[in-house]
């Protein structure tokens, strides 16, 4: 294990060797600090129209009729679309990030068909020559609704008498197949060993129920799309997305277009965190453009982002953990009920898989339910599903440590997943770094500093699988020997810097002679989306393949030039070098030398990496937090925070640290403040950044980041995905620190001032508010 500590590393433009692991300046950086970088809403086309969406004011209503005639008659309105403009789709499941979705639901989520299923559900859309006309046109669309009873809470939605969202939804995963439809879409279960026998061996059993609120990904850039469809059926789309190939697939399907005729460009993306893995505006912009025969630009307002794009699930979770007196976990059970929103497809499965994954437990059973209710359909959010179940488990582990009078780090260490341990969800772990992160935290000065009254310290660990998947890149050697790198996974937080470093090292060229771009869907083979912490992992593997082709090609060209056998030449340090006696006759040739002479040696030089990346290494992390509770107001202040996580190998340490720090602060928001607040009317009451309170700079301290490196043996550089694990431990770590500060075990998120005050009052602490 090696450790690179410190958060204030300064960037360099590294030489041609050993660029990987250094803090280079990102190639797309200057454009982003000068305002030049073009994000979703920054693209415009001549003659474009403004697109706007009419959204349901009701959380649940049958759409009896939609009359668009008055809107269509308004001067300046060029197209109006409704459910009638999209053909129905058969039930067919497709992967969406780490989750699944169904085309039957996708078409209904982008445009309501039989029913509006949540407040903000799209019902119609218009394209007009100005914003003012588009807004006026929305008012002229007459929708007749038959308002139906709604259900928001997941437990209420599971009751037999709950209002039913879909009359064709029968719970999958239960035997016998239910006779009646319900809001429970799916039951998933994993079983390892025998929990009954396991709990019988336990000296201590802790069982508790937890509740978490739905939270939004909170990217600062709203969804935006600019689409244009020509008379011959060719189409082009610019959109802010984590996966433009996925957008192409969905749009082509929903609009009946040939995939090859639809070219999608991923603009610079202003945050996604999983929320930009699905389509909302894109099919609407294209459908409007097809009708209006002009380009159509659509941008969501912040209110629309909150009401109509995916938050992640709120949930109810029950955890039961049994241990011997000496702290050996003998049995574990959890039951997870996750909100899916209006359509099935919550991240309950990853929640089930991850719940106990950090621990080596013989007897495990986890049951999960995917439950629909009248809320926006959830989308992936950073380690989808895992923060919720692991929050509950880490809280119980902490309580167990207290009960057994054991150090919470030692207890985790004693039961930690390590190489050779079989996870309850199936695979056997290879080398993993949980113990290393626990050790790293224990060694910090932070761990042993004294605390004052009303202060608490908490620790928690987290696990995420990470994924690989289909990835294409191309490397082109330009005529002057510079390199063009084209990747097809949107760069959401420094990907181009990491991949450029790999190209520099693979080809032995200076970092600043490599220019990376994110290619559009017409320029490169298929790429699965940026998500699952896969893009640096898979992209660097694909680059190694592409570079291999270039090196082999150049060696073959040299052998031809020098009239020798291929084994008499080798590629190293950016040069093809003659070996042995040949060295006296021939001079080493650089990539630039070949580039100049490409016409005489075999034509253009380049390589393409097309892989289905396997061997993603799981990433474990452990977080340590100090906080202080103000007993008079219930406000919680985070005093100090340390993250330790296994990166396998940090391609660019600054951006790895950035993932740790950013994930930690998103987790702090989830733990302390963020939540979707609904009224009894089923309407969202805090659809704006003032009332949906994400952490601001003055809410948080510096976040110390410790990059642990336990190499992933299945990656050429040892890389593990790093982006998702950091959001998992904060929830449990903060709840554990709260317990130490107040003596109260908080089981409901967020631990916002009103909830903390209520708990303190119940405990008899005098409060001011």
């Amino acid at each position, binding site marked *: 294990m090696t450790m690179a500590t410190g958060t204030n590393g300064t960037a360099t433009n590294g030489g041609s060797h050993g660029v990987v692991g250094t803090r280079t300046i990102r190639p797309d950086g200057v454009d982003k600090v000068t305002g030049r970088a073009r994000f979703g809403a920054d693209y415009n086309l001549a003659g474009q129209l403004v697109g706007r969406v009419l959204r349901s004011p009701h959380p649940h209503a049958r759409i009896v009729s939609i009359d668009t005639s008055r809107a269509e008659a308004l001067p300046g309105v060029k197209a109006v679309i409704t459910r009638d403009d999209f053909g129905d789709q058969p039930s067919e499941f497709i992967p969406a990030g780490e989750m699944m979705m169904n085309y039957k639901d996708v078409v209904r989520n982008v445009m309501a068909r039989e029913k509006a299923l949540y407040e903000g559900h799209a019902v119609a859309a218009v394209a007009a020559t100005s914003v003012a006309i588009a807004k006026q046109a929305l008012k002229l669309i007459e929708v007749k609704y038959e308002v139906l009873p709604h259900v928001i809470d997941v437990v209420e939605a599971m009751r037999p008498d709950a209002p039913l969202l879909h009359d064709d939804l029968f719970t999958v995963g239960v035997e016998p197949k239910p006779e009646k439809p319900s809001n429970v879409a799916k039951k998933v279960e994993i079983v390892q060993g025998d929990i009954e026998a396991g709990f019988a061996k336990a000296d201590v059993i802790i069982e508790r129920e937890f509740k978490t609120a739905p939270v939004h*990904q*909170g990217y600062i850039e709203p969804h935006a799309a600019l689409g244009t469809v020509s008379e011959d059926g060719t189409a082009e789309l610019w959109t802010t997305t984590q996966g433009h190939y996925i957008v192409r697939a969905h749009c082509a399907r929903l609009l009946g277009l040939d995939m090859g005729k639809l070219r999608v460009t991923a603009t610079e993306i202003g945050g996604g965190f999983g929320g930009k893995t699905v389509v909302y505006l894109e099919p609407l912009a294209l459908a409007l453009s097809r009708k209006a025969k002009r380009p159509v630009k659509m941008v969501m307002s912040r209110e629309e982002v909150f009401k109509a794009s995916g938050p992640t699930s709120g949930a109810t979770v029950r955890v039961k953990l049994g241990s011997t007196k000496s702290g050996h976990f003998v049995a574990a059970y959890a039951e997870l009920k996750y909100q899916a929103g209006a359509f099935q497809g919550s991240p309950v499965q990853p929640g089930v898989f991850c719940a106990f994954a950090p621990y080596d437990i013989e007897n495990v059973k986890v049951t999960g339910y995917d439950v629909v209710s009248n809320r926006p359909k959830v989308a992936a959010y950073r380690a989808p599903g895992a923060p919720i179940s692991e929050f509950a488990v880490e809280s119980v582990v902490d309580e167990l440590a207290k009960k057994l009078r054991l150090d919470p780090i030692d207890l985790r260490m004693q039961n930690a997943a390590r190489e050779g341990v079989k996870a309850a969800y199936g695979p056997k772990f290879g080398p993993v770094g949980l113990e290393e992160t626990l050790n790293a935290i224990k060694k910090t000065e932070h761990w042993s500093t004294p605390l004052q009254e009303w202060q608490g310290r908490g620790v928690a660990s987290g696990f995420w699988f990470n994924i690989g998947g289909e990835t294409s890149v191309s490397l082109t050697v330009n005529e002057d020997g510079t390199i063009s790198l084209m990747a097809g996974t949107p760069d959401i937080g420094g990907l181009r810097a990491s991949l450029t470093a790999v190209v520099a090292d693979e080809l032995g060229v200076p970092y600043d002679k490599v220019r990376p771009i994110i290619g559009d869907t017409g320029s490169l083979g298929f790429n699965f989306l940026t998500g699952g912490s896969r893009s640096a992992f898979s992209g660097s593997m694909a680059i190694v393949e592409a570079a291999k082709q270039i090196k082999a090609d150049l060696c073959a060209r040299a052998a031809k030039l020098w009239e020798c056998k291929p084994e008499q030449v080798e590629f190293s340090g950016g040069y093809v070098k003659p070996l042995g006696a040949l060295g006296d006759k021939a001079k080493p040739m650089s990539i630039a030398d070949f580039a100049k002479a490409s016409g005489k040696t075999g034509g253009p030089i380049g390589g393409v990496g097309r892989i289905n990346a396997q061997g993603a290494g799981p990433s474990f992390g452990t977080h340590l937090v100090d906080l202080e509770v103000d007993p008079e107001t219930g406000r919680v202040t985070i005093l100090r925070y340390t993250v330790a996580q296994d990166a396998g190998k940090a391609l660019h340490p600054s*951006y790895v640290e950035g993932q740790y720090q950013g*994930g930690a602060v998103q987790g702090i928001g989830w733990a302390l403040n963020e939540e979707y607040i609904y009224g009894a009317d089923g309407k969202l009451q805090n659809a704006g950044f003032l009332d949906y309170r994400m952490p601001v700079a003055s809410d948080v301290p510096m976040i110390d980041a410790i990059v642990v490196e336990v190499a992933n043996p299945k990656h050429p550089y040892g890389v593990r995905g790093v982006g998702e694990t950091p959001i998992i431990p904060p929830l449990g770590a903060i709840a554990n620190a709260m317990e130490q500060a107040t003596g109260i075990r908080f089981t409901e998120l967020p631990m916002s001032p009103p909830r903390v005050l209520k708990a303190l009052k119940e405990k008899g602490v005098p409060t001011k508010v």
Partner: protein
Amino acid sequence: MAKHHIATTVNGDNVEFLCETEDTLLDVLRDTLNLTGSKEGCGSGDCGACSVTLDGRLVCSCLVLGCEVGGRKIETIEGMARGAALHPLQERFLEQAALQCGICTPGFLVASKNLLERNPNPSETEIRYWLAGNLCRCTGYDKIISAVKDAAAVMRKG
């Protein structure tokens, strides 16, 4: 109603534009003057992505009307670098990886520059409170705070 005809100064250049009464300064900058460096994250003054200065005062351009800015002096992210040289804040943001997706970066830079013009040696707490009106969802603020602090030190040395 006829559009308003406004003459003003943006990044030292004299500009004229026509706008509707309800058009915000942000609308004018982005849609009329094609200065898309200022971003709209919320349209309600809560995220700071549209930060600009108006006669030296830091404002959210989504909360200012276009027809209010006649004869004023507007500075945006596009005016921050002078010629080929980046502003020390821009340099430190790059060197210290103080951005991930970059959508909030223009707003943070404009706000930070305004802070350092008022207070060349701010404490960490002063930086955090000054920047509390700018939301960043990617970085956890750590590297942004460090970059501003270090840029201030560079600028104090001249």
